[in-house]
């Protein structure tokens, strides 16, 4: 894809509600305060405005998007705009009949998440019995002739089972397997000491995933997202701030990423009040970290600045208190010591997990 600023993907967080309570959940810590969800007509307008901006991919996510009883209508609206529609779901609550209706409405892809390879381990992370039903949902997706993405968030408690995860995805005939190491923001940052793997664990898992990727090429796409805590340089978070993605929160805030509104001093606008096109091009929040003008040293003169665009602004803020700082994941960052000490901590005993809850 070309290099201009142009959104390709709309991430529609239809609701923060979710029956699961995963301890690395990326929803806001105060999610329970956001009760005022956008209505059907507003979502359909937002899809149309996004498509006019060039968006071609629509991720329907949450929380759990299935809790919306207008989901079929939203999928139908997306289909009429020729958006490639991806349902990102825990699979709960879902019956085969409803999945069939979603397919008939034009759903293109279903991404089901599991938390581990066994019911016991997966359900422990999710905080409820869910694993067996998730596998059932994955089988329905294939029975209905739809592509299936299996998503598993990796952390120190399950990283040693990457081989079994690949085997599970093969048994389910998944088209795509996302092995995504936890991003340490939100609930995951609180639980970091319980979740961050050791480098040795990570390297083993990476090698297994790389071999599977070669072996399965053309049949199943294997994606292994490295945690930036063990990378030399930061990742190009969201492909750059306000460059490829627009995220709409359940109550209508238009954001460059799911954690952007946790940064202080930035103003973001609501799609209830302004058309998406105007928000995308003019809003202070979307422009705050676009391009390279906002950078300070060592980013400003760094030869990699156009590659990683300074890394993740949210990680910079939540670790250093300064959203303009170089992402501490970068080995050139003044605050890189914070990442190094987290790696050292990971060599010690894992802390107990704290579950996502309405109040902490």
């Amino acid at each position, binding site marked *: *894809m*070309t290099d201009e600023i*142009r959104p*390709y*993907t709309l991430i529609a967080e239809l609701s923060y509600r979710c029956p699961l309570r995963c301890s690395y959940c990326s929803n806001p810590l105060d999610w329970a305060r956001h009760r005022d969800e956008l209505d059907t007509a507003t979502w359909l307008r937002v899809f149309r405005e996004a498509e*006019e901006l*060039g968006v*071609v*991919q629509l991720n329907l996510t949450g929380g759990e998007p299935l809790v919306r009883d207008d989901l079929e209508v939203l999928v139908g609206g997306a289909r009429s705009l*020729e958006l*490639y529609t*991806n349902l990102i779901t825990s699979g709960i609550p879902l019956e085969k009949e409803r999945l069939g209706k979603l397919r008939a409405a034009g759903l*293109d*892809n279903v*991404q089901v998440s599991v938390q581990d390879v066994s019911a016991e381990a997966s359900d422990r992370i999710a905080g409820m019995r869910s694993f067996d039903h998730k596998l059932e949902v994955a089988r329905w997706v294939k029975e209905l*002739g*739809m*592509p299936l*993405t299996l998503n598993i968030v990796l952390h120190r408690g399950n990283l040693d089972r990457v081989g079994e995860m690949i085997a599970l995805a093969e048994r389910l005939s998944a*088209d*795509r397997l996302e092995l995504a190491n936890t991003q340490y923001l939100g609930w995951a940052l609180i639980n970091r000491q319980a979740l961050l793997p050791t480098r040795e664990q990570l390297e083993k898992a990476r090698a297994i995933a790389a071999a599977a990727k070669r072996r399965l*090429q*053309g*049949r*199943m*796409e294997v994606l292994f997202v490295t945690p930036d805590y063990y990378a030399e340089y930061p990742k190009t978070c969201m492909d750059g701030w306000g460059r490829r993605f627009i995220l709409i929160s359940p109550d209508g805030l238009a954001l460059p990423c799911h954690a952007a509104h946790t940064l202080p001093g930035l103003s973001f606008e609501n799609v209830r009040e302004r058309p998406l096109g105007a928000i995308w091009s003019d809003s202070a929040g979307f422009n705050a970290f676009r391009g390279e003008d906002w950078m300070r040293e060592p980013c400003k003169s760094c030869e990699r600045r156009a590659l990683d665009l300074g890394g993740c602004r949210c990680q910079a803020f939540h670790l250093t208190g300064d959203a303009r700082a170089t992402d501490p994941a970068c080995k050139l960052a003044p605050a890189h010591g914070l990442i190094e000490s987290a790696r050292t901590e990971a060599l010690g005993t894992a802390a107990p997990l704290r579950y996502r809850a309405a109040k902490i």
Partner: protein
Amino acid sequence: MSALIERLRSEGERRYHDKHRYHVLMHEGRLTREQLQQWVLNRYYYQTRIPIKDALIVSKSEDPAFRRMWLRRVRDHDGDAEGEGGLAMWLRLADGVGLEREEVASCRSVLPGVRAACDSYVELVRGRSLVEAVASSLTEFFAPDLMSRRIAAWEQHYPWVDPEMLAYFRSRVTRARRDSEEAIDFVVRHATTPQLQDACVDALIRKAEVLWKLLDAVYAAYVKPKLAAKAKLRHDRVANKMMLLYPEKGLVLNATAADTVQLCTGERTVREIVGELTAKYNQDSAIIEREVIALLASLAERGLVQESA
């Protein structure tokens, strides 16, 4: 001198036909019975060219020791008596996959593209110096395990082929190693100037292209590509081009690529698709065929086309 070996290795390995889609499909067990049969039938023509080009190589040498060594290759293929040797073994393989031996041996059903590629190999050897001709034989040196992989894949995925018939492949596992060690040794000793070394590398590249074109021709005739269900084609208003969407990603397609994708309905062979595009764009069909096959390979690696139906 190891620099020359390294150069030959990297140029050869990069272009070696084990990476061709037809081989990938074969080794993953995804060829249909007909697709596998047609590979055996067409590849037989290549097998018939080998002793001829080896005899040409023998005729270029003034050294009896070299000729003795290289003549063994001709005997390996032709055998010491009727029914022996590599060619006879290949005809038994043809039996094993359910082909008429007489039809295979006659070479009358060989695809024109396969015939042209194999004949160009003989012409390459005829026209080049001894050391270059020997260098062109080095392709097997760069993937010594291709035969072992092929045997394992056939035994696993095509149980309807009598395993006894894989004798040719088995015999090649050790012979290929011995042959290519002798050849590499000869090239290193005789390609003593930069010009000669360049010529040897070039001969090897031409030979790798022969093997690749052979598979292109079989692929074009016997694969009917079908766009995968997960891939959706739409117009992209920003680029004003067609775009192929699939989970989380999209590819912007140029006009020919978009037309190609639209013709991938599982009903047309690659050759028929190339024919339609050639008529529409009034361009050289060889160029279009190359582009179409390259596009299909990149789509297949992403799981966006099915090739076996």
